């Protein structure tokens, strides 16, 4: 159902990323930055779709936007951390909000790393490598 757009470059070893953002352009940006680096990228439009996907496929990292319809990034992370099967998924949160209170709220929800948008591609790859423990290709 949702396997169509996953193209692992190194079958078997590719780390799986779940990119969660309501903007199709942002998702495409992450995909073109990360796929060539050997990641398998799956997309979700909001927190609810992300929960459904995370519950059916194992991922190594979720890259999560904050401002999204139906279920926002913080609610997604809270719900995920409270759901046994997916509680341990590492989360990189990206946001346009840069106040200390925003960052504190993210940390309290269980976000592992918080980055303010827009993110340069090499930075994105660096964080992703570190957070997934992937060998640099």
């Amino acid at each position, binding site marked *: 159902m949702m396997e169509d757009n996953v193209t692992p470059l190194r079958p078997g070893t590719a780390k799986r990323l779940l990119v969660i953002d309501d*903007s199709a*352009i942002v998702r495409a940006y992450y995909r073109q930055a990360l796929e060539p680096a050997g990641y398998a990228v799956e997309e979700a439009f909001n927190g609810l779709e992300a929960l459904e996907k995370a519950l059916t496929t194992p991922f190594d990292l979720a890259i999560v936007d904050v401002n999204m*319809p139906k279920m926002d990034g913080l609610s997604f992370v809270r719900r995920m951390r409270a759901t046994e099967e997916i509680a341990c998924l590492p989360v990189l949160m990206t946001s*346009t909000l840069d106040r200390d209170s925003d960052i504190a709220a993210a940390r309290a929800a269980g976000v592992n790393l918080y980055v303010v948008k*827009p993110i340069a591609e090499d930075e994105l790859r660096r964080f992703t490598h570190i957070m997934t423990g992937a060998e640099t290709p």
Partner: protein
Amino acid sequence: MPLVKAPAPQTPAAPAFPDRASVLAAIESLDPSERRAAAWASRAYADGIDIIAHRLAVESDAAVVEAMILNLVAIGSPKAAAVLAPLLRSGSAARRFAAAEALRDLGPDALPMFDALIRDEDPQVRIMAAEVARGQLGGAAAQTLERLLPDEDHVNTACAFIDVLAEIGSAGTAPVLRHFADRHAGNAYVRFAVDTALARLPAA
């Protein structure tokens, strides 16, 4: 065989609200299902929007909020838009988007409100206002975004405009986008967003 036939569904209980006063009472009830029923019943009254608006501002039950917003959209009118607009500033993302989505569903009735919100001094409100324009194909909303994009100095807000223009823009949107990309040549994300948007616009 253990399966039993269900009793034929009871005819719906006669509407619990004989008059406007009972709707007003129910919309403040402690029972969420009463409040929801009252939201649906308000439709029948000329001041249905006011009845809902009053409670919506403080309502916290998600299912009741959903019923209220669906009814505001169903009643329609610029007045419904005026009730929804302040919710774009809500602290809850779910509520901000619910309001933006409802304003979008109101169509032309929301246009005057959109024109004000898209120029709001809070860049986060402008981002949500751009969401209202999504789906308003080929209309005045796209032209407004095109006109405002060059002067938008919050880059994330500008990116939200580009995101929406990629969906609702016309061939005439392209020069505006190119111009913006040139001015932000150092920003790789902007370049990518503009290229992607250009590829999605209808051909000239």
